[in-house]
């Protein structure tokens, strides 16, 4: 008897657990689902937002239009985000190696500067940064002088800005990771005759793969999703990353343009989703250590 009551009790707890899980799934997926449904309806306001369209009300026009409008931006964003991500992760890892595994004086003050860098808000440096790229180091104009398109020069400025902004957090992430490395292992490598540079190349770097997955995902999402720096440093035009045309997408049409905005959001978000899928396993390993 007691056995059955016990198992019914467990069953009810199970039911409760799954009910909560299903509710959470609905909670998280509803906006995405609604967006998806809206993007394939001819008239977004014809039915409730989360209901699928009637067969006659289905259209792919928003998707093709959005893809067309954002194609250039997507390419620019890739040109921006791929080198930006790799550079900030790599430089962050090198800085963390220098600040953690090697020993020299004044390490801590330098580290404090790095940490402080994490907390500088974008808005605070907006004007100095835009002025820096516009007046003191106008890469776009320099590039134009030697035949490189101006937008590519501007985009390079944006890459450097994002790399500079990404290094502190990447350094901190790598430092936390490197602190757990055995000192004796690095000492063994020194005794084996490896120079500081070779120790990084052959010991530290190969062991950093899980943390690279973490920083790559994090930085890629950061840079890809940024609108503020993109707008201020590059602005609308040939070199604009995808966030800039995305922001203008609905507004360029006469109606509110729910459908095309939703389709555009999906198109713009696709690369970050792909990155998550590609590095997900490594990411989990990196976060758990």
């Amino acid at each position, binding site marked *: 008897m007691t056995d059955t009551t016990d198992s019914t009790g467990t069953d009810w707890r199970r039911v409760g657990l799954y009910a909560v899980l299903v509710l959470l799934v609905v909670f998280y997926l509803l906006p995405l689902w609604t967006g998806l449904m809206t993007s394939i309806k001819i008239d977004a306001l014809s039915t409730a937002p989360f209901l699928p369209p009637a067969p006659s009300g289905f259209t792919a026009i928003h998707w093709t239009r959005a893809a067309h409008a954002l194609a250039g931006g997507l390419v620019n964003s890739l040109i921006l985000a791929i080198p930006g991500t790799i550079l900030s992760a790599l430089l962050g890892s090198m800085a963390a190696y220098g600040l953690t595994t090697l020993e020299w004086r004044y390490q801590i003050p330098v580290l404090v500067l790095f940490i402080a860098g994490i907390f500088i808000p974008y808005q605070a440096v907006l004007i100095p940064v835009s002025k820096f790229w516009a007046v003191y180091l106008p890469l776009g104009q320099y590039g134009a002088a030697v035949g490189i398109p101006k937008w590519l020069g501007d985009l390079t400025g944006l890459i450097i800005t994002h790399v500079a902004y990404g290094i502190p957090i990447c350094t901190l992430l790598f430092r936390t990771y490197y602190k757990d490395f*055995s000192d*004796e*292992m690095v*000492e*063994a*490598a*020194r*005794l*084996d*005759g*490896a*120079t500081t540079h*070779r120790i990084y190349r*052959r*010991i530290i770097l*190969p*062991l950093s793969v899980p943390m690279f997955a973490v920083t790559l995902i994090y930085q890629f999402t950061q840079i890809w999703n940024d609108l503020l720096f993109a707008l201020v440093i590059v602005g609308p035009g040939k070199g604009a990353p995808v966030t800039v045309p995305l922001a203008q997408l609905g507004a360029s049409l006469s109606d509110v343009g729910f459908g095309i905005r939703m389709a555009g959001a999906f198109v713009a978000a696709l690369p970050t989703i792909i990155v998550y899928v590609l590095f997900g396993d490594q990411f989990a390993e990196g976060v758990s250590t």
Partner: protein
Amino acid sequence: MATLELDSITKHFDDDGKTIVAVDDASIDIDDGEFLVLVGPSGCGKSTTLRMIAGLETITNGELRIGDRRVNEAKPRDRDIAMVFQSYALYPHMTVRENMSFGLEESTDLSNDEIAERVESATDTMGINDLLDRKPSELSGGQQQRVALGRAIVREPEVFLMDEPLSNLDAKLRAQMRTELQRLQEDLDTTTVYVTHDQTEAMTMGDRIAILNDGVLQQVATPLEAYHTPANQFVAGFIGEPSMNFFDVDLEGETVVGGGLDYPVSGDVRATLTTDSLVLGIRPQDIELVDAVESGRDVAVTVDVVEPMGDESNVYLSLPDTREGETFIANVDGRTPVEAGDDVVARIPEEAVHFFDRQTGEALRNREFEGDADVDLSL
């Protein structure tokens, strides 16, 4: 192969403005091919000394010479040494083969074929051929230990440095590796400095042992010399298992009195005692249990605890008129029929007694020991 000379080596650490002396004026000359064991309690500076030889710590004062070449300022890679760490410190992302070739790739101009050859011959020596393509995480502790040793011998260095390499192994494997390491060192004939806190390793492995305490070198001697003729009370207490028994005694006429003892001392021995305030030391192995008091050197005692270990027993004895729990140890044959609470007689033979100056700890009189004579060392 080379000699290794530590000439007044001193190491100061700076701790918030205070200077901590980790190693104080240590001088040791290590012969070519010699196996020297650095031994002492934790925090005595033995690892720091080893790390200075390796070049992982700077030397505050003094000179370090490898084969007559001053190496104080040389980088670890330029000292022609190889070190085995307590944690083995293998590179986790490399296979055994890669772990062992790493040092040769980084420090020599050998071709890949030559490196492969050296690695194979080292793995032959260590008996780890079948592990070559495994990663450290796939190896047992004992196997990792072998790889760590293999990584050192493949370099064919002038000097081996070993920092408690056996302390992470279980007791049985440790005993086995101890013998193997000794044989290996004899075959290779490479100068070796071996750090340990385990006095069994110190006694059995070293050609000579250097005993450190509080950063100060206490004695450098062969194991038997250190055991039989310790330079001071610290060495006497540190070397030997169980530890030597000590009694604080005062010389009063022809006897020493104290700690419950009233022990007659012959004229020859008295002549060596330069002070009245003494410590009498006697090894547990030298105390005999007899049936009856026959002389002043036999004392009536009560058995407090018996620790049988099979072939031998440690018997904790308490003297009359001493505090509860104040005991000394006799190490006797395991078949001796004694039990806790028995009244027995302990015989303390004078030829086995050591005397130390109670103030300085310096040995005033050690037991008789001829360095070359065959001595029955029943540890």
